[in-house]
């Protein structure tokens, strides 16, 4: 700020000064406030003299920043289009944040973890800067407050993200520093985009509980560790909601000049998973598991750490999927632990489930359990079921336009000769265009893929092939066994993961960068005789039991709208496990989607006979009752579900709708309001509350809900942009169809897809076992 104070206007002459003032006025950023805001930071009732002094210094600083800050998005709005907030709603000095090295003196383990983790590198990496720089240069630095509310909240809250900033950006290197997270006092509703509220950082409170800002001597902390803990720890830091503040994001209208567009919803995905214990509709059940339980696992300390308990400490590495950052920085330990994490935990299950051959018995499965024959000359369909078994969110979570996971499927003869290969990496490092990938394709208003993470241009998503937590995906491959083929054949299906997509890496670095790691997440390989194949003598311990294999095949078929196949699969489950109530529920929910309500009712009764008051069965029974016009029974069932699962979004939503239909305004409002606590973005809640509040004479609240419904509702014209893209990319458009086949045999699947040249493909285009090149034979 001293630099700002020194500035002068070396002009001579009244006219020039006037014009200068006019120029300054014209140059004033849109929305810049003309009057300083009242500094609320001073309004705290019981301030100590030291606090009052700190508050005064903060006010002076904020007043100075405010003079030139670009308030494009409204007076006093310091972080919009992001949501990062700080008590007092005003700028704070960068020096208010104690440096991480200060914390490291007593928390060496945490510091060491953090330095290599994504959180400390949330801003500085090329992978982020390339993206945010585009926004900065395309629209202006003030728009980057959207991204930086999470990636660089210190930058936002110090007022550094404005044109001609006079804020020392030395803190950029530390991204989310210790006292970013450990200063959060409360959470905003779970809308993401930086939905937290910080206090001015403090590492101690005084004997009266007043926060003592800044770095205090270590001996003071050692004398009063409880007061240190009180300043830097909150119970909610251990909750998934804490993570939701940034691991949920949307693209708001101020950012894109369009409308609210959902970006990613990892928190919502967790909430809908079996691990939250909040959703009665999951296919499987599991123990309550938070984000922190997986991503901050406790492990033995190797460095001094006062936060350790019994020699263990919650990891501050937040190991997850990002291998690019540790690879770039040479953080070998982080890369090793990230790889181990990705390959541990039984997160995914790959099942080579069934074959269909041109001759023989047709559908044979589950492979390994039933005998079958296969011979040279056969055309074979292989069905690979990929189960998101133990990930508490989707595969891939968050930015699917940049991260890349895909299925690699190979068929080889005995001597290694390749018969079929899908999901290979091309010589230039890019992925086989027709690979089954768990990515998406956001497109702009011209139907063009939004490359380079230019999220402010997204208008639609052409396809999104993620697998939600607990669900399964069925990937079909078709190949022909050459008449001259020598058996046995080796068939392998694996799921690979790469951080990041090759074209994005190329945009960041140019094409002359090293190959980034490809991690094999899970694999299933089987040896197939050309001739008779008997059931496995010994089951692979990694395989699911047969009833679960059928169940997953059923789930995948359901998601591909193959209702007959799904019902048949779930019926097999019921045969194998007649005691398994969910088998009948699964048949029923398929039949509900298929509009076979009578049969659904029969199966739900069987389910409820096995598991009385089972919430999942009751939920679907309520839908059947609704269809039959039995509103009292419908409401009674939904109420039982809500009683068992008060945090179920679906149950709250449906019970609200039931009450609405019944004319029970109060009951409906109660449910929709509860739903909004669980998901502030639920459009059904917005829509219905807009009407209900209106009926109740709450015009202001009604208008607010109406406005939120309007912006959050998916643009009805959005599919047009997707269709434009898919028309231009027939090689990809099949991925947008729920049921599709990966094959080299049918010309229609090959449109626009150049075949790779096997000779040109390097043996190892990425530094991992799964980085093989190769191509279609």
């Amino acid at each position, binding site marked *: 700020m001293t630099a700002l104070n020194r500035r002068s*206007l*070396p002009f001579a002459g009244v006219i020039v000064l006037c014009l200068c003032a006019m120029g300054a006025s014209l140059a004033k950023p849109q929305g810049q406030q003309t009057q300083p805001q009242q500094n609320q930071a001073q309004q705290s009732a019981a301030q100590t003299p030291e606090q009052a002094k700190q508050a005064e210094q903060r006010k002076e600083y904020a007043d100075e920043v405010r003079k030139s800050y670009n308030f494009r998005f409204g007076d006093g709005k310091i972080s919009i289009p992001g949501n990062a907030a700080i008590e007092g709603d005003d700028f704070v000095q960068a020096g208010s944040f104690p440096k991480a090295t200060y914390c490291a003196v007593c928390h060496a383990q945490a510091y060491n973890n953090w330095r290599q983790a994504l959180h400390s590198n949330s801003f500085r990496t*090329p992978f982020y800067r*390339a993206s945010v720089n585009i926004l900065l240069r395309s629209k202006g630095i003030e728009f980057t407050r959207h991204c930086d509310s999470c990636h660089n909240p210190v930058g936002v809250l110090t007022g550094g993200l404005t044109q001609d900033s*006079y804020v020392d*950006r030395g803190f950029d*290197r530390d991204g989310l520093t210790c006292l970013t997270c450990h200063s959060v006092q409360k959470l905003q509703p779970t809308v993401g985009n930086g939905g937290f509220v910080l206090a001015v950082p403090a590492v101690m409170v005084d004997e009266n509980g007043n926060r003592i800002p800044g770095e205090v001597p270590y001996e003071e902390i050692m004398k009063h560790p409880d007061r240190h803990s009180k300043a830097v720890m909150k119970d909610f830091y251990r909750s998934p909601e804490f993570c939701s503040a940034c691991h949920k994001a949307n693209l708001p209208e101020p950012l894109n000049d369009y409308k609210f567009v959902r970006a990613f919803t990892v928190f919502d995905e967790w909430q809908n998973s079996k691990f939250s214990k909040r959703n009665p509709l999951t296919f499987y059940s599991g123990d309550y598991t938070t984000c922190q339980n997986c991503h901050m696992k406790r492990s033995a300390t190797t460095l001094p750490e006062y936060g350790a308990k019994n020699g263990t400490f919650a990891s501050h590495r937040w190991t997850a999927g990002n291998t690019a950052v540790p690879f770039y920085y*040479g953080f070998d330990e982080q890369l090793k632990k990230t790889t181990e994490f990705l390959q541990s935990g039984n997160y995914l299950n790959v099942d080579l489930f069934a074959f269909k051959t041109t001759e023989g018995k047709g559908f044979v499965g589950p492979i390994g359990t039933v005998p079958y024959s296969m011979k040279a000359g056969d055309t074979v369909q292989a069905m690979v079921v990929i189960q998101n078994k133990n990930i508490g969110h989707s595969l891939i979570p968050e930015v699917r336009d940049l991260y890349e996971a895909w299925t690699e499927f190979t068929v080889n003869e005995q001597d290694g000769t390749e018969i079929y290969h899908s999901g290979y990496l091309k010589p230039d490092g890019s992925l086989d265009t027709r690979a089954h990938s768990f990515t998406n394709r956001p497109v702009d208003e011209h139907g063009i893929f939004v490359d*380079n993470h230019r999220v402010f241009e997204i208008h639609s998503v052409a396809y999104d092939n993620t697998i939600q937590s607990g669900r399964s995906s069925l990937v079909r491959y078709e190949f022909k066994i050459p008449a001259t083929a020598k058996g046995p054949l080796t068939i392998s299906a694996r799921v690979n993961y790469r951080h990041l997509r090759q074209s994005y890496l190329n945009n960041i670095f*140019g094409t002359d960068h090293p190959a980034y790691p490809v991690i094999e997440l899970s694999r299933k390989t089987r040896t197939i005789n050309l001739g008779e194949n008997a059931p496995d003598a010994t089951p692979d311990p990694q395989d699911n039991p047969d009833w679960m294999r059928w169940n997953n095949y059923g789930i995948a078929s359901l998601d591909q709208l193959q209702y007959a196949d799904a019902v048949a699969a779930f019926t097999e489950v019921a045969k194998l496990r007649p005691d398994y109530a969910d088998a009948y529920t699964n048949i029923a929910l398929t039949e509900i989607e298929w509009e076979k309500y009578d049969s659904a009712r029969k199966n739900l009764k069987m389910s409820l006979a096995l598991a009385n008051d089972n919430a999942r069965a009751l939920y679907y029974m309520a839908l059947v009752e609704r269809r039959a016009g039995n509103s009292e029974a419908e409401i009674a069932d939904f109420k039982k579900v809500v009683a068992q699962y008060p945090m179920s979004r679906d149950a709250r939503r449906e019970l609200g709708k039931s009450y609405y239909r019944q004319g029970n305004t109060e009951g409906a409002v109660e449910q929709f309001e509860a739903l909004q606590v669980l998901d502030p973005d639920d459009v059904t809640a917005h829509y219905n509350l807009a009407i209900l509040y209106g009926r109740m004479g709450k015009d202001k609240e009604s208008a607010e809900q109406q406005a939120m419904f309007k912006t959050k509702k998916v643009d009805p014209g959005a599919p047009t942009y997707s269709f434009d893209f898919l028309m231009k990319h027939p090689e990809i458009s099949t991925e947008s169809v729920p049921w599709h086949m990966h094959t080299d045999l049918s010309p229609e699947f090959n449109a626009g897809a150049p075949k790779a040249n096997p000779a040109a493909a390097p043996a190892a285009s990425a530094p991992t076992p799964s980085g093989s090149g190769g191509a279609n034979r």
Partner: protein
Amino acid sequence: MKLVLLARCVALFVVLSGAAGASCHAKDMCPWINEATAAGYLHGDVTMTVTHTSTGADKAAAAAATATGTSVTVGDATCEFVRHDAAGATRLRIEVVTMSDVAAMFPGFRGRCGSDGQPVRAIGNEAVVCGMKAMERAGVAEQVVGRVRERAFVVSISAAAGTDQATMRETTLRVAEQVAGFLF
């Protein structure tokens, strides 16, 4: 006649506006880091000089980047921040040049570190760091030479003899990282 007078007024207004505009922009901003950040690295108030050095390659690169959906800042420049204290001047110099042919031109930049350049990981696409003799008063200097795609950058800090060179190197690396970050 009125039209002529009006035209003269408009012309005068335009001239004065232009002059005012030029004067109002009292100081060129360094595209890579701001004055406050430089002051933070040099531990005191600094004076800043920015020299624009466009050769045309930067504009061509910007046009190409726009076509591919990427983005680069137009305008090569050299920024110099100087801090004076009792020991003398500490100088931070940042030079960014767009190369029309990376393979041909970058070795020339890298050669500024001579054979002493040590490769540095995680600054731009590639970078080397080296110690140097300062131009003035037998002082010391540290320099990082690197590139982000087709843009070369040279960051150097020089100070009076006796300055802790290890600290200076660390600071130079941090500035270089910040510059590279902006060039991505």
